[in-house]
């Protein structure tokens, strides 16, 4: 009897220990994973799903990086040396989820290959091929949305009045993704500003502009789209835009009257009846 009691006690204790340790392990593990996936401002290959879904889906096989024409292992024909690759597989110390592909435009941008070799090889669907197909069903790199280029006006020397169109010239979608806006330079009175303007509906985020930028630290740089864009909210309506106006139909704003102690008295009587406001 005593022995069986002892066994039961031991069994309960072991079970509790196992469950407790598992819970502890699970907590630590979840914490680590949650931290690991919170790598900010990381740019993914073309066609990548939205970051959250991409992290679900990527199986970390590295086939996209191996397929990239611009790889570490490719030898530069002119210099005979290895050239740095566009797609890197995150290693320990990269502060990105280990094993996921990313690129850093400042080092090596995406060169926008016509046939997008990195996408069709993805076995898991983390790089979504249908999102890059045009109407004819062919791959179109211009449909990629890897990120969005942002111009920092204060450090862009074109905004100072110096002549520079490096990013504009480097853009593979010249005059579509980046156009130059002309403005009179009031300081000199006889020169023009040539201001780079990024069009977010066209920009693919390849980063060729960031790489080309001449300032010490690039004044134009690519951020992941969800970080580079704002959102106005559905309750703003462009009254001058017929299509936008259709959204609300013939509805008119409800008349809202707010009654307060003060509003009971007419403002007109401010002087005559010495109402205090």
């Amino acid at each position, binding site marked *: 009897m005593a022995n069986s009691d002892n066994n039961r006690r031991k069994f309960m204790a072991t079970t509790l*220990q*196992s469950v407790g*340790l*598992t819970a502890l*392990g*699970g907590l630590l*593990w*979840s914490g*680590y*994973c*949650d931290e*690991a*996936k919170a790598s900010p401002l990381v740019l993914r290959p073309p066609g990548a799903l939205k970051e*959250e*879904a991409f*992290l*679900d*889906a990527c*199986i*970390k*096989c*590295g*086939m996209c*990086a*191996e397929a990239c024409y611009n*790889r*570490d*292992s490719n030898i530069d024909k002119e210099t005979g040396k290895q050239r740095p690759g566009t797609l*890197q*597989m995150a*290693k*320990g*110390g*990269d502060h990105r*989820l*280990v*094993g996921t592909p990313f690129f850093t435009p400042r080092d090596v941008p995406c060169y926008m290959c016509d046939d997008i070799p990195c996408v069709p*090889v*993805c*076995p*898991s*669907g983390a790089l979504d091929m249908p999102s890059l197909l045009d109407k004819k069903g062919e791959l179109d790199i211009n449909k990629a949305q890897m990120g969005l280029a942002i111009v920092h006006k204060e450090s862009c020397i074109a905004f100072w009045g110096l002549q520079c169109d490096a990013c504009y010239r480097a853009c593979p979608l010249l005059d579509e993704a980046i156009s130059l806006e002309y403005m009179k330079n009031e300081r000199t009175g006889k020169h023009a500003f040539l201001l780079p303007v990024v069009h977010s509906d066209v920009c693919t985020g390849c980063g060729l502009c960031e790489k080309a930028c001449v300032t010490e630290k690039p004044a134009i740089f690519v951020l992941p789209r969800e970080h580079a864009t704002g959102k106005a909210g559905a309750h703003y309506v462009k009254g001058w835009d017929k299509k936008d106006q259709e959204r609300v139909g013939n509805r008119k704003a409800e008349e809202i009257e707010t009654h307060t102690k003060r509003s009971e008295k007419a403002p007109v009587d401010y002087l005559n009846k010495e109402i205090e406001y």
Partner: protein
Amino acid sequence: MKNLKYLLLRRVTQIGLLVLYFGANAYGWTILKGTFGSSLLFGVIPLADPYTTLQVLATGFVLGADVLLGALIITLFYMIVGGRAFCSWVCPINMVTDLANWLRRKLNLDKEEVNYRFLKRRARYWIMVLGLIVSAIVGIAAFEALSPITIMQRGIIFGFGAGISVVIAIFLFDLFGVKNGWCGHLCPLGATYSLIGKASLVRVKHDHGACTACMKCKVVCPENQVLHMINKESISVTDGECTNCGRCIDVCDDDALGFGIRSFTNKVND
């Protein structure tokens, strides 16, 4: 040389596979592309790790058909050759832990084995299930976020970076910590392959008549709980945790051990 046969064969296989994967990235070979997570054999046949696939499915993402088919192929393959043949014949971490284990024996670190109460061999099954739960909660393949196996393999293919520290940590853990600590107690991939290989065809067979009870096999075996039949009865090693590494066959001087096909008709082989 005779007592190194399977060891050498295993090293040739392990290193050969890594060379193929490395060559795929460095020289554009198409024999074996990708990593152990998911690869492509001869540019057509998809292969995928079953546990990694399960983790991604646990995150709620519906995987591409390539990966699912690949995981099926790998599962069927290891159902035949003995699940944990992956561990001893393919996994690159095996070379690290085998080195640690060998050094342990050379440095006499085994003499005062501490009884690790909390670290039972079945811990890996808990970790395997936990990995799937954490994947589902956090939304990334949880074990893949720290797996030393693919970190080491990607290190060899794409460059190591700070990832080498994970490999060193496992080496130190196995050398100074728990004997066969990583492969024998913690690794959830090993646990998955144990389950897959539970009824596999290729098994180590024991011949009681030839055995002289020298126990050399038990000394080298990384999972020596599976060798419970030594000097007792003539049966196959049926436990899924056997890695089919063949080291016991190598060291046996009495030809009492050898690879064979599991017999399903009668439990006791003669």
